[in-house]
């Protein structure tokens, strides 16, 4: 019983541009055209000034681990082979700390993950329609 399907994100009208960008290998976040504020999660209007106009800004794909958990137990069959794995909150550079994603820290022993660790995005296709942004320890000063 291998290759069990993992839950894939189901995009909606607010979130589709984010997931489509991930499929294209780009990390993007919404920014208000009126006041310049970044926001997360995706939504139609700015929580600061309530303007609806916005852009999907391309980000450098770098960020910082602001907290994390190491999952050692799962009741979800498709994740059991991954145990233990790291779920982390990643605050993205260039967003004035307004965009913090829940994601995974990969390519790093779980014992070495720390709050404050700089990370960079790696894209992982989990299904034909779904690509997840995950993060690994930052390797270079330039954008990936």
């Amino acid at each position, binding site marked *: 019983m291998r290759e069990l399907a*993992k*839950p*894939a*994100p*189901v*995009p*909606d009208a607010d*979130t589709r541009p984010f997931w489509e960008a991930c499929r294209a290998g780009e990390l993007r976040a919404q920014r208000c055209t009126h006041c310049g504020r970044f926001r997360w*999660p995706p939504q139609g209007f700015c929580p600061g000034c309530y303007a609806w106009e916005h852009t999907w800004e391309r980000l450098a794909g770098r960020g910082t681990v*602001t*907290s*994390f*958990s*190491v*999952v*050692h*137990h*799962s*009741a*979800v069959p*498709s*994740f059991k082979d*991954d145990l*233990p*794995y790291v*779920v982390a*909150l990643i605050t993205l550079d260039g967003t004035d700390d307004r965009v913090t*994603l*829940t*994601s*995974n820290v990969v390519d790093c022993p*779980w014992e070495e993950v*720390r*709050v*404050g660790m700089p990370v960079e995005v790696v894209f992982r296709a*989990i299904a034909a329609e*779904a690509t*997840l942004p*995950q993060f690994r320890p930052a390797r270079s000063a330039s954008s990936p």
Partner: protein
Amino acid sequence: MLPRDQTAIVGIGWTAFSRNSGASTKSLAAEASFKAIADAGLAPRDVDGVMSWYYKSSDGVSPVELGAAMGLDCPFELYVNAGGHWMCGAVTAAASLVASGVCKHVLLYVARNGYSEGRGRRAAESNLGVGPDQFRTPFGEHLPATTFAMPATAHMARFGTTTLDFAHLAVTQRQHAALNPKALMRKPITIADHQSSRWISYPYRLLDCCQQTDGGVAIVITSAERARDLRHAPVYIMAGVAGEGETSALWETNGVNLAPRLYGAAGVTPADVSFAELYDPFTAMCMLHMEDFGLVPKGEVGAWVTAGKNGLDGETPVNTHGGLLNEAHMIALNHVVEAVQQLRPGGVIDDLCAGPHTYDRNVCRQVRDPEIALLCGEAGGSAMLLRK
């Protein structure tokens, strides 16, 4: 603002807590409700408001179904999808219906087969990546232990809190549960037991986590005026608040937003709190609540619980029944039941004292001369103050 001391909790009831009730949630809700109504000295048809709440998807009988099953005459019904955050908000909403005159006697209940039926339901939910979950479940954030690890890990990084601190809280609350026959987890544990229990989701080990439960709990709320004619001395609702805003950092809960409003509405300070029943699905969440509602300065809760200041004879006893961690996970409506028991003139009726309270901590879990109780919901999403 809820008018101070104008509403009261006058009835409390509960079923046995177990891992396999063998009963429907309608029966569990009804059993707890009938007991709470009788405890108040009322009859079922005196109830004209019925309320409950749940997390994500209904896992029990709705107020509409329960009201119909009890043959009530057009009760005001409210069923809220809000989870543990809403705990004191539910009580505040019920009290508001009473204070405004919409209802005379509101029945508030939680009934769930959270263990026997909940596991399959939660596993199925973990496989859905819809709505807010599209940013969680695909990354393997399925367990509440993972979600609520985030504030804990951040607190550890910022203030040097350790899992050894968590252990002290786990041991103290288990000591409280040992004096509570209805608690599911009563066997004493040691610091070493905690530290050697298996990881669930770092920084939480098995003994940092509560477990899901089958059972039911209910309370009855009425006006202070009507309460004086009922069976027990009223336990007054001094203030109740709910609602979430932004916090400045992960190591803070929404309690930092609500605490000033709560204490301001009641006209008291944290120093006036005799004991507290705080939402504790995981050890560290309870610790953050202790800080954010002012029982201990920010960043100092590790030393505070290590010194046992949350014990029954400590500076501020916390979770005197053992909490969600040990008694049961009734979305903390069981915390309200415990607070009411502690504040009634005769004190708790189901510790191990035979006769008057002795304060011998081998048998007695009654707090000494309590006046005011602090309660809060998950992540400080709601809070209230009760008094005798």
